Every structure is written in structure tokens, then in C-alpha cells.
């Protein structure tokens, strides 16, 4: 099992990112000389989203998300830039490690989907049973795998046993040993077209999904329910619900304000690439929306500490969300109309 004693170290540059999926995508692309920033990857991959699904519970709390399903950003970017991806899952645990070894031996940095609960280098308070984390394996020194985890400031290592364990974490969206790598990159790609496609799809997802749980409608839906939380759930549970919103908004990997600032950074980059100055204005508006999300978190923080009168605060928090929904609706109504000049 561990007889493989040779050392493999791919010349791979580690970059820290706010979010793992953007980060892995951006780092892998850079390795093949496609220089797209994390923000650019996020924008092309239509990464901004909102969903509120109170009937789905995770540890007794409603599922709230500020991003699309795991893997979507990577898939969309690959498609829009024209990159060929190889991806596979394994039933046989040992085999999944063997194939990983063979792949890095060929000099191919390889992405792995992992669970964070057993990720030994992660701070303990961040280790929940969350299974959609992404890391890049870029070498092996005896029993230690060299890992570029986009959340970390520098490369880290995992032993054979520990890597195997996180690749086979169990529970919701179990990674099942999934690994993926870039097979082929195009010599030329149309960045402008990719950006426009990304923005258009993102606008649709924020505005036009015909279910009120998603996009700006989802924000309003949550806001309306939020006003009733203290009455319906009681003080304790209501603050846990609110805590869940804040965690999804800020806990590791959103770059602040539920990805709104990353998206604003993307719009700024897009303005330059497309030479369309109005996108800078959109970026400023998106920053303002992000600032409002932060305001919301501050009010929530005061509620956690029991400083304000409860009913008033939940109303105030919900009102901010209503305002945010309006702002984001206006932004995406304009962005939806984007085209080449």
C-alpha cells in the first residue's frame, strides 16, 4: 500500500483564494497558462446566487446558500473557456489512491473533492461534516501528499491515511473519491464571450427562476419569514436561524458578504476586458449591496448578544434584506442586457 517511496513534486504555484472551488479552478488554469483571477472564474462561472430552503434542514437548521451547487462554477468555466476536464469517482478506495499517484506522477496537478471534518490542518472550529471542499494534490513525499488548499495561506500536507479518509468522507454530498484534472486547454479562447455568457446566466438565475426560493425572490421570501421567526420559533431557535444566515454569509470562503464583493471585483475586471465603463458603476452598486449584507450581519450580531429589543431587530434585519433584494434586482436587470459593444 505505501511501498511507493519515490518523491514526486510537480512545479505548482499555490495561490490563496477566498473560496475553494474558484480557487482550485483558478490555480489549475494558471498552471496551464490561462491567467484568470478568482473573481474572473467566479463571474464566468455565474457564481453569485441565493437560495433559501426552509423545508431542507441541516443540523435542524434551514439550508441557506449564497452560491450554486458544488462543482457548477468549475463546470461552467471549463465549458465557456473550452477546457477539457477529466473527472472520475471510485468505489475501490485503494484504487482511488493508486490512480491519484499515477496521475501526479505524470506531472498533472489533480483536484480532489474532500470532506473537511477530518482535514487535519484545518482549525478545529471550522471542521463540520461539510463534504464539498476542494483541494489540489501536486506531489508526494513518502507518506505525505503535497496539498494546495486554496483556503490556506501556504501549501500543506496530508498523510496517505488522512487523504484517503477525507476523500471518502460520508454524509450529505459524499465525495466518493472524486478526482479531476485538466486534460486539454485551448490555444485561444474568447474571454469577452465567456464573461458575457457568465453575466447573462447569473442575471437569469438571480431574477427569473420561477420558484420563490431562489435569487432576489428567495431573499424577499426569507425576509418575510424572518419577521415571524421570534414568534414562530421562540427566541433561542430564532437566533440560531439568524446565526445560520450569518455563517453562510461570512464563514470561510465567501470573500465577505456572501460573495457580493468577489462579484463586484469581477465586474470591475469585466469592465476593463470588455471596455464597457458602465460595468464599473455596476461594480460600485454591487459593493453597496455587499455593504448592506454586512449591515444585516451587524444587526444580527446585536440580536445574538440580546442588546436590542427582539421584535424590532428582526424587523430591522428583514427590512435590510428587502432593500438588498431591490438593489440586486436593479443591478441584474441592467446586467441582463449586456452584449458586445
Amino acid at each position, binding site marked *: 500500500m505505501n511501498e511507493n517511496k519515490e518523491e514526486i513534486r510537480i512545479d505548482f504555484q499555490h495561490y490563496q483564494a477566498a473560496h475553494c472551488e474558484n480557487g482550485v479552478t483558478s490555480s489549475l488554469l494558471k498552471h496551464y497558462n490561462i491567467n484568470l483571477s478568482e473573481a474572473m472564474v467566479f463571474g464566468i462561472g455565474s457564481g453569485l446566487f441565493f437560495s433559501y430552503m426552509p423545508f431542507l434542514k441541516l443540523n435542524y437548521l434551514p439550508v441557506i446558500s449564497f452560491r450554486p451547487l458544488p462543482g457548477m462554477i468549475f463546470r461552467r468555466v471549463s465549458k465557456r473557456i473550452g477546457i477539457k476536464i477529466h473527472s472520475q469517482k471510485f468505489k475501490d478506495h485503494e484504487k482511488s489512491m493508486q490512480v491519484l499517484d499515477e496521475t501526479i506522477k505524470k506531472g498533472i496537478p489533480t483536484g480532489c473533492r474532500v470532506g473537511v471534518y477530518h482535514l487535519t490542518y484545518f482549525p478545529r472550529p471550522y471542521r463540520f461534516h461539510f463534504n464539498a471542499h476542494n483541494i489540489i494534490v501536486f506531489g508526494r513525499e513518502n507518506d505525505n501528499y503535497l496539498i494546495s488548499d486554496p*483556503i490556506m495561506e501556504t501549501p500543506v500536507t496530508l498523510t496517505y491515511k488522512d487523504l484517503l479518509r477525507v476523500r471518502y468522507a460520508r454524509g450529505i454530498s459524499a465525495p466518493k473519491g472524486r478526482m479531476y484534472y485538466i486534460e486539454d486547454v485551448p490555444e485561444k479562447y474568447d474571454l469577452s464571450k465567456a464573461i458575457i455568457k457568465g453575466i447573462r446566466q447569473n442575471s437569469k438565475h438571480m431574477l427569473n427562476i420561477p420558484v420563490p426560493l431562489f435569487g432576489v425572490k428567495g431573499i424577499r421570501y426569507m425576509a418575510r419569514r424572518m419577521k415571524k421567526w421570534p414568534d414562530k420559533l421562540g427566541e433561542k431557535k430564532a437566533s440560531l436561524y439568524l446565526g445560520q444566515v450569518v455563517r453562510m454569509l461570512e464563514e470561510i470562503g465567501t470573500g465577505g458578504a456572501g460573495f457580493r464583493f468577489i462579484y463586484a471585483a469581477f465586474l470591475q475586471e469585466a469592465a476593463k476586458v470588455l471596455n464597457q465603463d458602465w460595468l464599473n458603476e455596476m461594480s460600485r452598486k454591487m459593493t453597496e449591496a455587499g455593504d448592506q449584507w454586512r449591515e444585516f450581519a451587524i444587526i444580527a450580531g446585536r440580536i445574538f*448578544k440580546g442588546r436590542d429589543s427582539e421584535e424590532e431587530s428582526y424587523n430591522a434585519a428583514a427590512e435590510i434584506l428587502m432593500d438588498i433584494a431591490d438593489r440586486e434586482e436593479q443591478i441584474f436587470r441592467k446586467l441582463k442586457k449586456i452584449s458586445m459593444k
Partner: protein
Amino acid sequence: MKKKDIPQDNEGLSEGKLRDLCYAVDENGNYMTAYSTGWTPKNVAMKMAWDVIEKKVEETRKKVLSGKLSQLAYYMEKNIMNLKLLSQYTGIPKRKIRKHMKPKVFEGLDDENLKKYSQTFDISLEELKDIKRIENT
């Protein structure tokens, strides 16, 4: 968010192992990235989530020490698992795990079963068997 407003409310949650990368605008309105060591509303929200877990662990620990449940229940809660997840990790059916939660049944378990549990919880067989280990936590 402006660069100068990036919060640095370090309350030890990242154990010095990492800093969050944040996006913010500089003096000229251009986006850049910088580190944050934490932000109070986020820190509080995280602590709240852990408080819920720790409370549940402590309740279960008391039940174990008073003989109502086997230590299996304690380690399950401590690892933030439920029956379903523990069953997935160990390969032991849920109804069997439920039985193993009874102290009498747990005492009679063979090492083969116990090993599946101890490996999942990342503890030694001796640690799992010895109920005294959870007396002073």
C-alpha cells in the same frame, strides 16, 4: 467594503492556522484582496453553532455517566454525528447502533464491532471501552 474597514476581530477561532481572504476596495475604488483575522458577528454566529453542539455533548455525557446510555452515544455527539452518519461511517445498521446505545448491550460487544466505532471516532479501543475516560472532560 473599504480596505481600511476589513475587520480584524481575532477571537481565536482559526487557531492561528489561517486568515480569511477578503475582497475590498482601496482608496482609488479598485478592488484588491487582504486578510481578515475574524469579524465579531461571524465569530458569534460560529460560537453559537458550537454552543448547541457542546450542550448536546454535555447532556449526553451525563446520561452516559448515570447509566442511561452507553459511551457510544457520547462519542457520536462529540463527533457531531447522528445515527445515519455513524451508520454510514461504520457500516453498522442504524437499528443495531440504537441497540449498542444501551449500556448492557455495549458491554457485551465484540472487538470487531468496537473497532469500527473506535476507528470512526479516532480513538483507541481502550479509550472507547473505558467509561472513566469521559468522567473528566
